Every structure is written in C-alpha cells, then in structure tokens.
C-alpha cells in the first residue's frame, strides 16, 4: 500500500553504525495511548535496526518541558532532532534554536507551521478527518441522520484539523444534521462520556451517528450508548486503531477507525534522520506547503488508512497491534468470525 516504508529502514540498516545521535521528542501520554505504546517502541526498533543511537523523550503535554528537553538534547550533542510539536509556535521556536546550534530538525507526525524542519514525516491530519467523515457517512448511508461531533482537545491543533477534515466531507451531505458538537478538554475520556451523555439527552436520544475524533473518545460515547441500549445501533468513528477501537469494531459498536502505522512512520523517520546525520538526501513522497511561511517542506506523507469491520486484520498483519492484545478473551471468537487468526 505504501512504498516508502520498508525500503527506508533497509537503507538505514545497511548504513551500519551512523555517526551522531538522534533526538526524538514525543508530545504526551494523554491525548492518545499511541505515543508511548506504539511510537516509542517503533522508533526504538527502527533506530536499533539502523544501528543509530536514539534518545526518545516525552514532553508530557507541556511545551515548556519540550523546549527544555530540546535544549538538553542539543547540549547533549544530538545531530538530528525530531519533534512531535505540541503546537506550531513552540515547535518553531525549538527548531529555530536547534538551527542556531547547527542541529537539523524533523517534524514527526505534526507539521510545524512557520518552522524550519528539514523534513516532515507524517500522515495528513486533515485527511484523517476526511476519512472519519467518509467512514461515518458510509455507515449511516443515505437516510437522514442526526450527527454528534465529539472533537479532540480545544488546545490541540491536530484536533482542529481533524474536525476541519470531517466537516469538509459531511457538511455538503445535506441529509445529515449536526445536533451537537463539543470539544473535549485534554481529550479526557471521562469528561467525554459526560459530554456525550448530555448531548444525547439534549437531542432526546435522537442521535444516529457520532463523529468521535479518536478511539478513546469513541469508546466513551459507546460506553454511554451501551447504557441506553443503543450501542451498535449508532455508528461511531475513531482514530489510532487502538486495541479498544479495533475490539469495538469487531463487536459492531464502532463503525471505523483510522490507522496510522507507527512502524511505517518510525521507519520513515529513521530513514530521513540517518540521511540528515550522514549528510545524504532522503527519498520523499513530495513536499507539503507550510501555510504560514509558504515554504515547501520536503515530506514523506504516509497514507492514513480507514479501518472497518472488513479490514481489522490488516492492522494486525501490519504489526500495528498484536493478535494477543486484540483477540483476547471474548474477542477471540469475533476475531475468528472476522477471519483473523493468530
């Protein structure tokens, strides 16, 4: 499906031991479970395979912390610094400082607008939203339907992009009516459950579909629907192909999720990082326009993949999740029914 991934890591692996050190700063542990559970191990694995020393840190949702870590890494002599910014401005400030110390930078997963990264490795966030919108529309069909949006944190720029993408697909479809839309502070799942329950109540229970920004929020909505006897009857979207999301899809309570392979993304990261460290050039899929500075940032843009009941197996096959995690306990049978085997 995607050609830039496997080859990338191979190149790195052949390079043997690379001079220099690569610093990677992940954003947090709360917006999604992916950063610590998927991205960190994947990046570590890619580095190990490429034989390059990597320093991976998590900013725990705090831009100041991220800036500190960046300072430290620069002082520690990294030659390449990859960040998942917490917002464009702080990301740009970090990159500015790195550049002035002669350290090359990479945008990982999130594009830093107005930044100075040499490369951008990611999935397209607006595209993610589009996939969610399309997925929900597919599950709802042509009938008129009331939709509730459960958006990500109001302070997270990605959340804004996801919502933008979803609206761009669903708004033109006139059979759908938005009966509620709320952002969930800090992606807090418990708050999300209350918010959804109340939106549902306000709509008198007449909710036919839920556009939830990621699997955690989707799970919260499903949890409420379950209490109202509506789980499975009201399609819900998600993102990140977490165990929770995939299981919900198997159980029929979630309509779809968006899979953004951490392995692919990490391998691509390792590839460009090593290219930068060795002074070489990395293979890109094109460029992305930085809307703020107008700069064209050389990019490796991976395709986010829409996952529904039909292709849950793809995620497992791709190594995005393990069979053991997804098909545990009561889900073993459902996996079997969906044709997923160990």
């Amino acid at each position, binding site marked *: 499906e995607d050609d830039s991934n496997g080859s990338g890591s191979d190149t790195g692996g052949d390079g043997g031991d690379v001079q220099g050190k690569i610093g990677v700063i992940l954003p947090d542990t709360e917006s999604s479970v992916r950063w610590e559970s998927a991205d960190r191990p994947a990046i570590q694995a890619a580095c190990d395979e490429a034989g390059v020393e990597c320093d991976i840190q998590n900013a725990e949702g705090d831009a100041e912390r991220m800036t500190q870590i960046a300072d430290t890494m620069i002082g520690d002599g990294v030659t390449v610094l990859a960040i998942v910014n917490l917002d464009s401005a702080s990301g740009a400030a970090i990159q500015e400082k790195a550049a002035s110390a002669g350290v090359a930078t990479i945008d990982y997963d999130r594009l830093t607008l107005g930044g100075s990264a040499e490369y951008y490795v990611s999935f397209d966030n607006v595209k993610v939203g589009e996939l969610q919108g399309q997925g929900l529309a597919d599950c709802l069909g042509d009938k008129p339907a009331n939709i509730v949006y459960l958006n990500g944190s109001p302070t997270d720029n990605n959340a804004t992009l996801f919502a933008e993408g979803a609206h761009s697909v669903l708004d033109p479809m006139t059979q759908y009516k938005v009966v509620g839309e709320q952002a969930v502070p800090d992606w807090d799942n418990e708050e999300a459950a209350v918010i959804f329950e109340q939106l549902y109540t306000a709509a*008198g229970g007449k909710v036919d579909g839920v556009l939830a920004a990621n699997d955690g929020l989707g799970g919260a909505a499903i949890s409420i629907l379950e209490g109202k006897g509506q789980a499975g009857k009201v399609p819900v979207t998600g993102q990140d192909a977490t*165990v929770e999301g995939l299981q919900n899809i198997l159980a029929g309570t979630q309509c779809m999720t968006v899979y953004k392979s951490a392995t692919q993304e990490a391998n691509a990261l390792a590839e460009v990082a090593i290219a930068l460290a060795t002074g070489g050039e990395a293979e890109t899929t094109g460029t992305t326009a930085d809307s703020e500075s107008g700069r064209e940032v050389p990019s490796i843009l991976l395709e986010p993949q829409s996952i529904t009941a039909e292709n849950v197996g793809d995620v497992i096959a791709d190594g995005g999740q393990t069979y053991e995690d997804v098909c545990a306990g009561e889900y073993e049978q459902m996996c079997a029914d969906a044709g997923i085997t160990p």
Partner: protein
Amino acid sequence: MTLQSDNATTEPAAQRAGFDSDAHHAATVRDAVTDYLNRLRGGDMGSLPAILGLVVLFAVFTGLHDRFLTTYNMANLVVQAGSIIVLAMGLVFVLLLGEIDLSAGVAGGASATITTLVMIDYSWEWWLATLAGLAAGAVIGLVIGVLVATLGIPSFVVTLAFFLALQAVPLKLIGSGGSLRVTGVLRDLSIKNVPVTAGWIAAIAIVVGFAGLSLWKYRTRSAKGLVHKPLGLILLQIGVLAAVVLGVTALLSDNRAPNPLLFNISGIPWAAPVVIALLLFWTFVLTRTRFGRHLYAVGGNAEAARRAGINVTGIKIAAFMICTSMAAISGLLAASYTGKVSPGSGGGNELLYAVAAAVIGGTSLFGGRGRAIDAVIGGLVIATIPNGLGLLNQASYINFLVTGGVLLLAASVDAISRRRRSSAGV
C-alpha cells in the same frame, strides 16, 4: 485574710448551675421551628447554603433546557455524580485533619487498573478483584500517611509526588494495549439499574430504619431528661423522608428511556445505593465511634488531641488510608462509567473538583469541620454543572467560563451565609 469572702459560697453551687439552654426543651413543632430560625439567624446554616445553591442551579437549568428535569436526565446525573461524590467523601477525611491528598484521583486510577488487570489477566472474580483494588488503594494511603504523619512532610508535597509517581502505574501496567476494558458486574454498575422490587424494598427499609432510630433516640433522651426534639418534629421529619425516598423510588421505577417503546430503562441506578451505603457507613463512623470523634479532635487541635492521649499518628494514617480506599472505589465507578481504564484515568481535574465539592458541601479546608453528607451535596452541585452545560451545547471557552462562574457562585452562597457566623465571633 483570704480572697474568698464567705457570702460567695452561701448558695450551693450545683443547685445554681446554669445550662439554661439544655434545660429549655422545644416542646412543640412551632418551638422547634423558631429555634431553627434563630440558629439560622445566628449563622449556623448547616447544609442549607449548598442545598440552596443546588436548587438555584436546578431552577436555572430547568429554565434553560426542557430536558434537564426529566427522570432520564436525573438518573444520568446520579450516575455521573457517583464517582466524584465517593472521591469527595474520601477527601473529607483528610480535609478534616487540615491535610490534602492531591494524589487521590490517580490513586483511584491506579487501583482501578489493578482491579481490571487481575480480572482480565488472571480471571479473578469481580469482588475479589475489587478487594485487590481497594487493598492497593489502602496501601497507597498507608505510605502517604506514614510519610505525612511520622516524617511531618507537608501532605501537599507528599501527595503531589504521589500524583506524579502513581501515573506510572497504569502507564506501565496497561502496556501496549493502551487501555483496559471493564466488563461484567463492575460495568453493570453504571449501565444497569437496581431491579424495581429490590429498589422498593431498600427504600422502605431506609424509611423504617430512620423512623425506628429517631423514635428510639427520642425515648431514651426524654427518659433521661436530656434535650430532645419534640415528637411532632420527629414525626414530621420521618414523613418528609418517607415522601422523598418513596417518591424518588416511584419516579425511577418507571420506564424513562427517551424512546420508551424501543428500550426499557427503569429502576434506581446502582450508583445510588453504593453512594447511600457509603454515606450511612461513614456518617456512622464519624458521629458514633471513638475513631470519628478523634478525627475531629485531631483536625480541631492536633496538640490538644495528642495531650488527651489520642494516637495522632494513627489517626492521620487511617484518614489517608480511608481517603485512598474511597478513591479506589471512585476510580472503579469512573472506570465502570467509561467502560475502561487508561493511563490518564484520574489525572485530570477530578481531584480539584472533588475537593471543591467537599468544600461547597460545608467541609473546611483547615480541618475540624466536615461531614460525609457534604460530599454528597457538594458532589451533586459539581456534577450538575457539566450535566446542565452539556445540554446547552456551547463553545468550549463558554463552558470554561460558566463552570468557573457557577463554582464561584456556589461557593459564595456558602461563604456569605457562613460569614454571619464568623462575624458573630464563633
């Protein structure tokens, strides 16, 4: 010549001993009402301000959205309030001592993680797993309590450290899956309701129990000539309680589903009996046991308590253990509600909200004043805000503003009404 002239002691002292108020029994319901109004005027407001705040909130939201005051939404509210009430009830114990536990929220998350994990990975029974979670909570409280009580480190810092350190537990334990699913009995706690007949039986038991206790107290105190409420007032109180409890039971026994034909939702949500049982239990502990009395004493004046031979260290440790054990229950309720535990569980603003709930209910942050019911009333106030706001569907920043504003308002009602008392010098 001594200072004590003889006429000073001509009258036998005991005969002239005061205690006028003790001797004055409010004989009729009207007397009792006058007494009550006098006490109010003197600033002794009890839970009244918080209840008033709750009533105002209810009135406003009812005006703003016609679905607010439906039995359906009220049942929602009960379930939503459950975990914060339980957390706040646990916090009352440390607040009573003038301490704080910033880690209670994440302690709840960590305990719930453990409960869920042993159920999933080792197939423990739900009750055994729950006990394991409670034990984990208690152990956390034990460690915190020991650090605070024996080393004398300020609880703010100890529990801030635990707030951070405990976030590691779910992060490490949950591992690659990212979150753990809560199923079975624990999950049903939030989505199922008490069977209608069982609800009625429990409701009647509560009313009968209350009536029996009140009348028994009346009999023994009036027999000994101690101050007691007039019989009329007691009967009135029993009547009011019966009306409320049975009325609510009746309302919640009806099918309240928004699409009643499609689906049947009836019965009292399980969260309610859990909260009520905890409320009764802890109220008993606080008011009728030596331990409870000592808690208040240590909170009021730790040095005086120590001089009275109270084991201050033990009391402090116990309070922290109760707090974190209650946090474990709260964490389970929260997990039951969202159907899962994940690394962020309990790490948000829950803790601050729970403290605010206790304070709004009437518990003092400086120790010595607080009751279990405070947590219930305050928790309902706090839970009503997002419940009502959620119906109104406003932009995020408006929600922030309104939440802050309402919190402030609720606290002001309380503060202003109590101010009279403090200006009276008490």
